[in-house]
């Protein structure tokens, strides 16, 4: 706990740099990543990330320094060339985009590794640390890097803010954007440039290999929580920034831990959690919905069963033992008991020592299920011309999901019928 407060106090200048730097990087690349994701060009980020390595090496060879600005410029140039190469290959040959990305990625990365090895064996003392570009060096960010990051991060955020509406339309409907006279080529170029910039600064923290995760993962996670682009951008930025801070904290408490990979691990964790927990779309929400449906079906089947028994004997007031119910319909005894108990608690059933009986409300609800079942059977035979011995199974499920409005429509279309296809009364 003490470490946590020490970390938060930012007393250590190094902590300040690392935390702020990681936050800015992760946050700004997440925002750009949202547009890349929506443009369905998620893999492009990976290609650019690998393609910046030769740029970094060349910039070092030519300048002989590790000045972050110079290295960034080199990275930017080769990153950009890689994207142009991908576009060129896809438009001028039969090669599809995924293949082109694979080609460009490996060729550029290969050249990068080649140059890096050459530099390392050149005996130049200044080269130490250049290999950090492979896996990032967030833990050793210095003041100079921070300035470079901040400038680029602010640029990225400002550009997405200024061109928000243009980028939105470009990602949603490019052709339409063209017809209303938007400079689509220019906007594409802008988005490409933003992607390259995001990658170029991002690799300083997490490295070439993990950079794609920084672009795409926050965007994918944020998409689970919202259906609004604006909210998605903010969420992605927050998630990215949080993972940046958390990664810095982990490597602060355990200095042996690398910051970059931890940032990626944490954002991936957030993505997995989003996938599980997001309302409506997450899989826990789906499991809950399925359970709820199952319960509804069980309860309505029991009510229907009691109603049918009462209807057959013209007597709704006699209590019926569980065995009688189970004879009529094969429900596992344990489930049936559970369902009956629930219905009693809801006030639809009464229980005496002789067995179960419907309350007034229970009769009403049971009658509705029976009515919907028979209406649907009639609808299927009349409108879909199905044989009357084939419609029961369908009606067994449909009876549980018909809304009152649909019920009214059914009644109207069937002209308020009295009998179902099996000549049973429609209650």
């Amino acid at each position: 706990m003490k470490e946590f407060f020490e970390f938060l106090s930012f007393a250590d200048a190094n902590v300040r740099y690392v935390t702020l730097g990681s936050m800015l990087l992760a946050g700004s690349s997440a925002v750009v990543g949202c547009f890349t994701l929506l443009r369905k060009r998620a893999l492009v980020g990976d290609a650019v990330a690998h393609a910046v390595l030769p740029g970094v090496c060349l910039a070092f060879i030519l300048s002989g320094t590790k000045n972050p600005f110079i290295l960034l410029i080199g990275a930017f140039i080769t990153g950009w060339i890689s994207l142009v190469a991908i576009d060129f290959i896809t438009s001028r040959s039969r090669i599809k985009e995924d293949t082109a990305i694979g080609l460009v990625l490996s060729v550029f990365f290969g050249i990068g590794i080649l140059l890096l090895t050459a530099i390392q064996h050149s005996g130049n003392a200044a080269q130490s640390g250049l290999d950090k570009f492979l896996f990032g060096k967030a833990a050793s960010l210095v003041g100079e890097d921070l300035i470079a990051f901040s400038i680029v991060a602010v640029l990225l955020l400002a550009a997405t803010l200024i061109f928000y509406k243009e980028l939105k339309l470009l990602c949603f409907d490019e052709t339409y954007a063209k017809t209303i006279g938007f400079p689509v080529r220019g906007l594409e170029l802008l988005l490409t440039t933003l992607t390259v910039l995001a990658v170029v600064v991002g690799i300083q923290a997490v490295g070439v290999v993990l950079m794609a995760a920084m672009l795409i993962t926050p965007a994918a996670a944020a998409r689970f929580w919202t259906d609004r682009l604006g909210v998605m951008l903010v969420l992605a930025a927050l998630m990215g920034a949080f993972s940046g801070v958390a990664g810095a904290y982990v490597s602060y408490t355990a200095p042996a831990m690398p910051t970059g990979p931890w940032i990626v691990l944490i954002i991936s964790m957030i993505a997995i959690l989003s996938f599980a927990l997001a309302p409506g779309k997450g899989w826990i929400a789906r499991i809950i919905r399925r359970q709820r449906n199952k319960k509804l079906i069980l309860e309505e089947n029991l009510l229907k069963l009691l109603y049918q028994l009462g209807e057959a004997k013209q007597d709704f007031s006699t209590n019926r033992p569980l065995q009688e119910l189970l004879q009529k319909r094969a429900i596992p005894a344990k489930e049936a008991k559970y369902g009956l108990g629930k219905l009693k608690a809801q006030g639809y059933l009464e229980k005496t020592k002789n067995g179960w009986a419907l309350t007034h409300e229970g009769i009403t609800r049971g009658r509705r299920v029976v009515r919907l079942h028979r209406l649907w059977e009639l609808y299927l035979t009349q409108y879909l011309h199905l044989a009357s011995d084939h419609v029961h199974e369908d009606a067994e499920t449909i009876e549980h999901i018909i809304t009152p409005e649909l019920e009214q429509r059914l009644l109207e279309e069937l002209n308020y019928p009295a009998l179902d296809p099996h000549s049973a009364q429609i209650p």
Partner: protein
Amino acid sequence: MILQVENPVVEVHDLTVSYDRKPVLWGVDLTIPAGALVGVIGPNGAGKSTLIKAMMDLLPSGSGYVRLFDKQIKDVRKRISYVPQRESVDWDFPASVFDVVLMGRYGNMGLFKRPRQADKDAAMQALTKVGMQAYADRQISQLSGGQQQRVFLARALAQNADLYFMDEPFAGVDIATETAIIELLRTMRDQGKTVIVVHHDLQSAADYFDWVVLLNMRLVASGPTEKVLTQELLEQTYGGKLTVLSKVGDLLRKQEFPSRETKVKRVKS
């Protein structure tokens, strides 16, 4: 039967369009009168969508030129509006119905500008015209096919254009939507707007349109509906493929041949 008109809204001259060097439209020459409800009709692969896309300069043309309102398209972008095919976009995009309709105002707003209140009013009016005002806040992935089509139509209406290009607006929509859309198109025509619709259903074509363009890789006919929808012209459009034409097209692609020896530049205005 290719009827040319005076003072056309759309003038297409010797237009050839190729995909990957294979021509899909050969030498189209046509004019369209103002204030008409026009149907572009032909079999699958006849180049109907290609024709309207080429008219809007969305596809590069191999030869020939298109003039709208007797001007080059780049000078009249604000007066034209496009309803693309419904399937051309990903409806899972994070946007509401209102967001999409508001996109129809982006051209008027200009770059960098935020939507003004007037733009929002216009978008809401357009939504009301297609009967979707109750769905303004709905996420677009929750819409039915017919509702998606109405949203696209509303987006085009929000532009307040004079010339509308619509690509298969009746494809895969329910009867209620089809009726609502055609009513709307008629109202627009009566207000003097020109509406060009790619349509695949011959049955309803005679009833819907007052000008028909018959197309099958080349222009078969262009004129008033009653003169164009004849047995003979329909047979020419739908009867049999032009096998030799297709084969020549394939050859052009394989040999990487140009479809014209020199490209004719668009005439300057």
